[in-house]
């Protein structure tokens, strides 16, 4: 019987079974940021501990950094305080920091892969639930809380219970206008937002294999929205090609050896899975969320559900928060804000897809539209191609890299009960910084379409007007 990638990585990184039962697992790469670490460093200081592996710890700033007016000190005193605290901690403990002003700064889950830090067969941890993103490379990547950040800083290990593996095979060709974001939103909708509890999701099937690394990252990123702490794709040529030549990638002969090893870490053909699910790509449509969790979604040509069945209470609660009527079509719903960015969809290919829709068009009157590249590197690459001008000419704001409007921890926030078409990952009540703000999750191309028309729009209608050229 063969093994899954998860089992192989687990076995290789297992230190021991702790007396209390869980596994002590070595962490190969620890990524840290300003929000979930200060209290952990405090404990290290109090107890006189060092950082066990500063050589395997990398820091950046993303959650609270403004995406314009970035001169220091920040206008927000608390934000300034947090950044200064991370700077001090990195200095004192010898950890490299990609700070504001550094070309390597960006959302932690965007820069890890960009720098070549994220590699197949690794264990990765970060105090952020979207750490699952790194699984796109065939790494096993855990989102952790601050007490576990403390554990990793002090010991480079976490205590964790073994996970089951559910393979999700996406088979067949994705129709035009249907993106990686629609694939993962569909998976979450079908399996439920708690469906992945206790599982790692292995994404497989020819549709996944054809995906670029950017697309695989989008899928793995939202594993946690399906309740799965870990999601991964087996590494292949697409993975290796992406990594080759990046700053932290192995060079020359070491790369050739790495490639052989990386390949050996992929799940064996005869591996056993705890569960197996198949999704037919051809059936998928562009997806939009209508409710207050990422599982409450429908096809853009669908109607908002009736409050019925066992979920009656949560549906009617969500509809009332969103200001929607049961049975109403989601297409045509007015939007006030369009947000393209985040660790889910803030990469260069996301901006390409959005730009195809936007080029030569104008943002609808009354809509505030912004594009926030996921990293300085994405920003610079986009600017070299003139994408910033494309977006600006259409009436979008072009911002600096950060988490921005995904989570309401920086100046980019919804106001009142604004409706936001968002390429980010969570539509929880209040998520985008206004306690009554409303979020509609969708692909970046769909956000671009909504920005141009001012309402939720089926991007497939606009794509017909755009010259073909994508898959």
């Amino acid at each position, binding site marked *: 019987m063969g093994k899954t990638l998860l089992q192989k990585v687990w076995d*290789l990184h*297992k*230190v021991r079974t*702790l*007396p*209390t*039962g869980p596994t*002590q697992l*070595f962490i190969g790469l620890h990524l840290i940021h300003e*929000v*979930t670490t*200060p*209290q952990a460093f*405090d*404990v290290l200081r109090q*107890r006189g*501990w060092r950082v*066990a592996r500063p050589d*395997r710890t990398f820091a950046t700033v993303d959650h609270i950094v403004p995406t314009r007016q970035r001169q220091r000190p920040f206008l927000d005193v*608390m934000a300034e305080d947090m950044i200064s*605290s991370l700077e001090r901690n990195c200095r004192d403990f010898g950890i490299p920091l990609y700070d504001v002003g550094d070309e390597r700064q960006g959302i932690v889950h965007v820069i890890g892969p960009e720098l070549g830090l994220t*590699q197949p*067969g690794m264990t990765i941890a970060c105090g952020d*639930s979207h750490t699952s993103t790194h699984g796109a490379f065939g790494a096993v990547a855990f989102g*952790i*809380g*601050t*007490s*576990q950040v*403390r554990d990793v800083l*002090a*010991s*480079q*290990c*976490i*205590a*964790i*219970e073994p996970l089951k593996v559910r393979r999700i095979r996406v088979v067949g060709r994705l129709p035009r206008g249907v993106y990686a974001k629609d694939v993962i939103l569909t998976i979450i909708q079908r399996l439920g*937002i708690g469906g992945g*509890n206790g599982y790692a999701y292995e994404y497989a099937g020819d549709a996944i294999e054809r995906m670029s690394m950017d697309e695989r990252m989008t899928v793995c990123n939202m594993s*946690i929205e399906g*309740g799965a*702490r870990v999601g991964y794709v087996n590494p292949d040529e697409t993975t290796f090609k992406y990594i080759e030549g990046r700053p932290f990638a*192995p060079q020359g002969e*070491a790369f050739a*050896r790495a490639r052989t*090893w990386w390949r050996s870490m992929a799940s064996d053909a005869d591996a056993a899975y705890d569960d197996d699910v198949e999704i037919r790509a051809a059936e998928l449509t562009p997806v939009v969320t209508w409710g207050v*969790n990422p599982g409450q979604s429908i096809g853009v040509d669908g109607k908002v559900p009736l409050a019925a069945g066992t979920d009656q*209470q*949560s549906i009617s609660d969500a509809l009332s928060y969103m200001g929607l009527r049961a049975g109403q079509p989601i297409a045509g719903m007015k939007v006030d804000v369009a947000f393209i960015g985040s660790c889910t969809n803030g990469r260069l290919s996301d901006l390409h897809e959005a730009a195809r829709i936007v080029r030569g068009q104008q943002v609808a009157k009354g809509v505030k539209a912004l594009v926030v590249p996921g990293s300085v590197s994405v920003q610079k690459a986009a600017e070299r191609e003139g994408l910033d001008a494309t977006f600006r000419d259409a009436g979008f704001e072009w911002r600096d890299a950060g988490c921005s409007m995904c*989570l*309401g*921890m920086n100046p980019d926030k919804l106001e009142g009960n604004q409706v936001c078409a968002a390429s980010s990952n*969570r539509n*929880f*009540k*209040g*998520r985008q*910084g206004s*306690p009554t703000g409303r979020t509609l999750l969708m692909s970046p191309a769909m956000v671009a379409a909504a920005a141009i028309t001012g309402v939720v729009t089926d991007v497939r209608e606009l794509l017909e007007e755009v010259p073909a050229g994508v898959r």
Partner: protein
Amino acid sequence: MGADKIQIIEGRALPLRGDDMDTDRIMPARFLKSITFEGLDRHVFEDDRLEAKRSGRIHPFDEPNYRGASILVGNRNFGAGSSREHAPQGLRRWGIRAIVAESFAEIFFGNSLMIGLACVTASVSDVENLMSLAERDPTAVLKIDLKAGFCQAPGMTVRVSIPDHVRDTLMTGAWDTTGLLLDNYEQVNAVAAKLPYLSGF
């Protein structure tokens, strides 16, 4: 480190109805903008509480009868979403010592364990019975015995579940893990030494 040993949690209950209670609701992101966890107790469910106030309702966390309650009773998939430990930290600082729910989101469950906040599950009907009881009689005292796997309340005893290792961890006070992970560190170094990516392949 002297972490407390936790076996019995006794106190009044605070019923909080709703599935998929996410950590953005438990602790809105703006309150994460601090370098300490201090004061988070004041902001637990802040936006939900304001919303309740606006619509003329009283949120359980504002209901005077539930002040001082130490056992939260919730529904399905409690603590979904963001890994922010600020959510269980806020609840614990408010005074919550245990949560009984139909199910928990994984990261929230782990974060709670790390700070000695006991999360136990009960059946849908038992959760409903506990909630109704707490709504009828906010003075009712619940007693969770982790070892026995029961929650006693006036007029009822319900079975609660907790994975064995979590129960043992809480009961032995081993929920403060760092010390444990630093033991036998040569074993950790041995694992690191055989990782191809740490030795240039």
